[in-house]
């Protein structure tokens, strides 16, 4: 039996190898590479993290780049494109000029203005989109919790806090990291100008969503691969199974009203 208080901190697949870190409260932090495991104390883990920063700084001596100004979760996502990174610049933009990526119908990507982003809409009371389950890259936090935390940090510390800026690529206005911060700032202060960090790449390795949904959908079809199909099939299977269980419960509750009332008292009081 493992420690019940385990939190997965980060996970990555390189080729066929799965790598992950998990925090086992009271025990140690585990690093897993397949069947191989290393145990760290918290201090050793922090020491490892610092060493990795030093290694990356040696590997990528890019003008203006301070790795500690990037959120570690985002650094993990963008690090593979660093060979194309030429420099990092600071800039200022108005919040209403910023755009955010979102998933439209059928999973196709599109961009919308920050004003219409799910973060801003959630802060204004429309939480439908923000409450939907999505893969947040923040550990053990839903989108709603993340938004609440960021709002609290901005109220207490202002922006930028902890030297972390909203991030854009080249001369574009699509937020690459910092959507929650931008949403909170817009909600609190309106259309102010804020400092942002621009990563200037040699060429573009990313694809911006088109204004036209059909083009985005066609692009998605071009990129279909087996693992994506498997993921969607698994998602559909889980949705159908979850729906079937909900029906079973509803039928049970309807046909056994007294019993289900008793069950609620015992198990969900």
């Amino acid at each position, binding site marked *: *039996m*493992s*420690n*019940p*208080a*385990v*939190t*997965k901190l980060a996970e990555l697949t390189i080729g066929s190898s799965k790598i992950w870190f998990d925090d*086992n*409260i*009271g*025990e*140690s932090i585990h690093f897993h590479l397949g069947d191989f495991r290393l145990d760290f*104390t*918290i201090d050793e883990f922090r020491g490892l993290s610092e060493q990795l920063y030093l290694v990356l700084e040696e590997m990528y001596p890019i003008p203006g780049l301070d790795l500690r100004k990037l959120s570690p979760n985002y650094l993990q996502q963008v690090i593979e494109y660093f060979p194309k990174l030429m420099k990092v610049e600071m800039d200022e933009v108005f919040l209403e000029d910023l755009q955010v990526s979102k998933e439209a119908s059928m999973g196709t990507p599109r961009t919308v203005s920050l004003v219409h982003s799910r973060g801003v809409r959630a802060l204004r009371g429309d939480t439908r989109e923000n409450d939907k389950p999505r893969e947040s890259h923040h550990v*053990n936090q839903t989108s709603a919790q993340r938004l609440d935390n960021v709002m609290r940090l901005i109220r207490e510390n202002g922006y930028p806090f902890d030297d972390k800026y909203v991030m854009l690529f080249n001369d574009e206005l699509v937020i690459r990291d910092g959507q929650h911060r931008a949403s909170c700032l817009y909600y609190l202060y309106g259309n102010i100008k804020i400092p942002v960090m621009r990563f200037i790449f040699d060429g573009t390795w990313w694809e911006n969503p088109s204004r036209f949904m059909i083009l985005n959908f066609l692009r998605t079809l071009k990129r279909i691969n087996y693992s994506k199909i498997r993921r969607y099939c698994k998602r559909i299977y889980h949705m159908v199974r*979850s729906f079937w*269980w909900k029906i*079973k*419960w509803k039928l*049970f509750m309807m046909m*056994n009203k*007294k*019993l289900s009332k*008793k*069950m609620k*008292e*015992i*198990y*969900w009081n």
Partner: protein
Amino acid sequence: MAQNKLSDISLECIMLLKESHIDFLIIEEKISKMSLLIKSEHKDKVKKLLTKNKYKKCLHPYGVESGYQFLYQTDKLLLFYKQEVFIDISFQLLCMSHTPKTWIPLEQSIQQSMWSEKKYNEKYNCWVLDDTNYYLSRIVECIFLKKDFESDDIDFFTVQIKILEEAALEEKFEVIFFRFSGRLIQLLKEKRYMEILERYRTFNEY
């Protein structure tokens, strides 16, 4: 085991299990629910026995149909009812993981100790969970499942405070809470129940 009067249905169920030579322990008995621990090898036998004796099987609020998963090949929870009395059956002593809706079994040594240290209840003529393991199961339930110490839990822990002196309990805490176990015992002794969850969550001395 919590000292409550067993309902007639619970007594009937105990009688049936004994007659069929099924190994079981009573974990807990409340007015409308009896929690049993049954040996895994008797799983099919107990399902047939209860169904044959007009106990109806129903969906378990913490079972697979409620979206819970059971890791490490743990047997799923079963729930039967008859005349509005629930018989809640588990085959290992389970703990809710930090991973949402995931059950894992407690350490093997604890599973074995439940059967080796069981105590006999003279009044109902059956085996019940011993005090140490029952205390442990209540702590695990408060910290991992309910994530709260309710008033009846606090009353129970306060009454049973002397059990914290037992070395056996400390050993069992250590395989679940590791380096937090000493701190946990101290907080329980000082009756600082409301601090336990936050202290556990933010514990970093490891």
